[in-house]
């Protein structure tokens, strides 16, 4: 009788271990709560270009982040349609860059990030004289592009 009880207890414990094995992973796996809808999969058709601020004084440095682009691709940056630099998108199709407005006149500027004709997005910023000077967040990353066509040439010295 006692042996039977002991065996039952062991069996119950082992059953619980098997049933609850998956539960032990709860701290390590985040259960997605996002609704499963078409919007979840449509992002690929609509690249996004986010910027930390949309208005600032000339001399501001804006932080741009593109997402939903083709992964591992070269994206061109355009200011008002003029090419100003390139960035590489990462494995999930995101890329960041900084826009330095030093020397630019107060005006509206359209910033475009484009991998190809099917993956292109434009975002406007405005430079206002006397406005707040925008600085990028401390964790902002990426190459810097300039509104004015400042070209930093390597200095060549003749010995």
């Amino acid at each position, binding site marked *: *009788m006692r042996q*039977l009880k002991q*065996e*039952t207890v062991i*069996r*119950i414990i*082992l*059953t619980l*271990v*098997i*049933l*609850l*094995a*998956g*539960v032990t*992973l*709860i701290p390590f*796996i*985040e*259960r*997605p*709560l*996002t*609704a*499963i*809808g*078409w*919007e979840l*999969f*449509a*992002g*690929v*058709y*609509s*690249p996004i270009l986010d910027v930390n601020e949309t208005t600032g004084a000339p001399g501001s440095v804006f932080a741009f982040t593109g997402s939903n682009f083709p*992964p591992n691709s070269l994206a*061109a940056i*355009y200011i008002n*349609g003029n090419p100003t630099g390139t960035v590489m998108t990462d*494995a999930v199709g995101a890329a960041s860059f900084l826009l330095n407005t030093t020397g630019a006149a107060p005006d509206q500027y*359209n910033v*475009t990030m*484009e991998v*190809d*004709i*099917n993956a*292109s*997005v*434009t975002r406007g910023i405005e430079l206002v004289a006397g406005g707040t000077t925008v600085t990028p967040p401390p964790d902002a990353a990426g190459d810097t592009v300039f509104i004015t066509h400042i070209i930093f040439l390597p200095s060549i010295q003749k010995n």
Partner: protein
Amino acid sequence: MLERADSLTAVNLKQTEDSLRQLVARLDWSAAVAFGLPFLLYWVTAAPTIYNLDSAEFTTAVAANGLIRATGYPLYLLLGKLWSWLPLSADMGYRMNLFSAFCGALTILLAERILRRLQVSGWARLGALGLLASAPFFWALALIAEVYTLHTALMAGIILALLRWAESPTPLRFALPILLMALSMGNHAATALLVPGCVWFVLTRHPRQMLQPRTLAAGMGALLLGTAVFLILPLRYATQPIFNYAGLYDAAGNFQPANLQTWNGFWQLITGQTFAGQMFGYRLAEVGLQITAYAAQLWTAFFAIGIGPGIMGMIVLWRKDWRLNGMLTLMFLANAIFYINYRVVDKNTMFLPTYLIFAIWLGVGYQWLLVWVRPSMSGTNHHNAPPSRFKVDRLVQLFIVGVVALAVGMNWQQVDLSDDWSTRLQSEAILNQAEPDALIFGWWDTVPAIQYLQLVEGQRTDVTAINRFLISPEEMNKLILTEIGRRPVYINNPSIALLRETTVTAVGPLYRLEPKNR
């Protein structure tokens, strides 16, 4: 006279009551519940009208007798058409959503038959298939017009047919899984991923039967009969359907359909060569993350609780029937490995075949646990054993069914589409804002639903909508720059080349393009 009439009525009533009783007694309640409960769940939460992306394309193609992009999906076009004739609703989009609900419930029913053959008890079946039916992506894909639940239903049918053949191998029983397999290829090309498992099962179970001429003839006949469904594609092509996603637009805006009456055009469509670039599209360093993501998805699908018993079931089935489990494992691995390495945005929706296999393992695992947890009666007389105060296996039964109820409750919010009119509203808004004779360019999230409203409901037929998938970027730019002076042109996202040459104004979710010098 009246008394006689009364007694006749009484006799009739009695007969009706008896036949009803017989019917109820003969009814397979387990099967009825396996089909009825999930179907009810899906019906209540199904999208009420046309849904977006592929769903809109499938629905419009079925309704307009059109053609779908690669891989053509001829079986879906055929069965969808038959289903669409059922008088379930005036809304074609809703009717096709219910087709997925039906196929989802059919999958559960067929999986129930498989588990029954594996001698899995009713409680274990309910627990395992309840989790499959309420797994977020399985549930979600049973609510919109899609090919995935039809695919899992056919897959379950193939496994069941193979089990029947293994029990009593006759040429006709051998032909049935081949017929289903060939038909299934006409619904989803991923059926090819089931072939290694099926071949393994046949060769390990009754290899000599393969050498019998009658068996081979039956198999060939079934293959020919099943693949005949592909004839729908060239036949539809011949009718020059108004809705056609098999082809490309040129720079003049003329649609150049792929010639499905030539072998080259037909083969290119059904083999999905347009998507070859996405297959095995990850670098080696990225694959680890994809495997982790899939493992997390499976864990979520089976509500954490199902993972341990599922793995247990897989081990138990190896010992019980290694031939069958070899087939299931090959099917699981082929699907998991292929889709883990498939670089598309909606890959999470494509793992349902692995869910089905895991649910079978889970059922076997639950059954093993229910037997295991009972106190051993070895060495004692079962009838003379002292009655236990509570039955542990009853508690486990309640637990596994309780988990299903919890999963349904917790996943409901995540998948419920019963009030989702977003696709119709977006498409109607675009058509309302579009000027007469407008030309609209957009992707899957914009254009197929607009075409549904035009071709199925007759709205704004003056507007031309072109899916950017069907035109090369260069041709699209040329077409836009040609048409921009003649008619209103809208696009979902203008490129830098267009921004340079046009004036762009946001109109709803689209942009109106106008010549700069206007």
